[in-house]
């Protein structure tokens, strides 16, 4: 299984000018949990400004996306298997919990799907 590439997420997203443009009306802080690891990701006008690593004391966020490490590892495969290939598929099978105010996520659903696709290895890396 593939390690979710959280370290390079900001760099990859911010280098994708069209993706940033599509998120230009989005500014939000959200919590991502990968097993016991926690991250607060701050997006400003479609760019990832910061990714802070936990554990946190009194972290503030608008919505949270919580999944086990194994789930995110399967999701992060270059060619994920059915049920682990899409954020809504994870939600469907309750392997991803979406909590808090879902509005920014649902209003920018295609944007978030493409952001999370950058957790996967790029074809060129293989």
């Amino acid at each position, binding site marked *: 299984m593939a390690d979710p590439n959280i370290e390079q997420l900001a760099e990859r997203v911010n280098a994708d000018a069209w993706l940033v443009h599509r998120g230009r009306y989005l500014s939000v802080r959200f919590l991502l949990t990968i097993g016991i690891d926690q991250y607060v990701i701050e997006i400003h006008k479609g760019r990832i400004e910061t990714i802070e690593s936990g554990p946190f004391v009194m972290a503030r966020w608008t919505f949270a996306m919580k999944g086990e490490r194994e789930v995110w590892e399967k999701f992060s495969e270059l060619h994920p298997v059915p049920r682990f290939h899409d954020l809504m598929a994870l*939600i469907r099978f309750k392997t991803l919990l979406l909590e808090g105010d879902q509005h920014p996520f*649902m209003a920018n659903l*295609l944007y978030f799907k493409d952001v999370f696709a950058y957790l996967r290895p790029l074809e060129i890396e293989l």
Partner: protein
Amino acid sequence: MNSNNNEAYFEPVTGRYLHLQLMGQAHRIYVEEAGEGAPLLCLHTAGSDSRQYRALLNDPELLAKYRVIAFDLPRHGKSSPAAGWHKSEYKLTSRDYVDIVCAVTDALALEKPIVMGCSIGGRIVLNLALECPDRFGALIGLQSGAHVHPYYDLQWLHRPDVQGGETCAGIVSGLIGPGAPETDRWETLWHYMQGGPGVFKGDLYFYKIDGDLRQKVSQIDTSRCPLYLLTGEYDYSCTPEDSLELERLIPGSKLTLMEGIGHFPMSEDPVRFLSYLRPVLEQIQASRVARND
């Protein structure tokens, strides 16, 4: 669908507007067709339209044997909503959907057509099998299951503070197989982005609330009308397990699982889908000859 060179060309598809009464109201329904032979009536998915069948309507091998027909449900594609549509919430019901398919079949004077539907269309063929199987030569359910539990909050599909088209596309984008050709993937999503406000949500009233057939499907008699099921492995709306359960409950139904395909086989990856559909059509043809149908 591409010509071999860059010259302009017309597809063999003809589109016309059919005027008829549906649910006691005058309707203007857009119908496309191509080919000659046994009628093959195609039903689109929730929130989309007949463009999903563009590849089938252009496939020479299919058109040599079948009159391929696809129409847009009211409010979808180029079919108009009926007068007064703006005064109430749209909710597709099993009753209305069966009546629409039968009325269009009658208006086009189709004799024992093969009806093939996907998703909500894959569900309604089960209703047709239950209610009026003798009217059809065969039924094909794509992504067909007896019931789907809501797995997200449907309110996100229709509310003024969210762009409906892009959210509908976002909801369904993962239902497309990851290996689908990019052009067909995004054409499929484009159709969802163009849906009218509340239409996808209204269709899902049938799919997820009104159209629960779990207690009825075992009554389907496939000796009166053959039933074929084809389901893509990446579909998490109607999963392969849902279709396997359907096959188990309906004696005589025949399920094919499609590798690499998701919820929109005819639109997301037509070439791969046709490789699964052609053998099914051959089986139907052989059984019709055997029955002298």
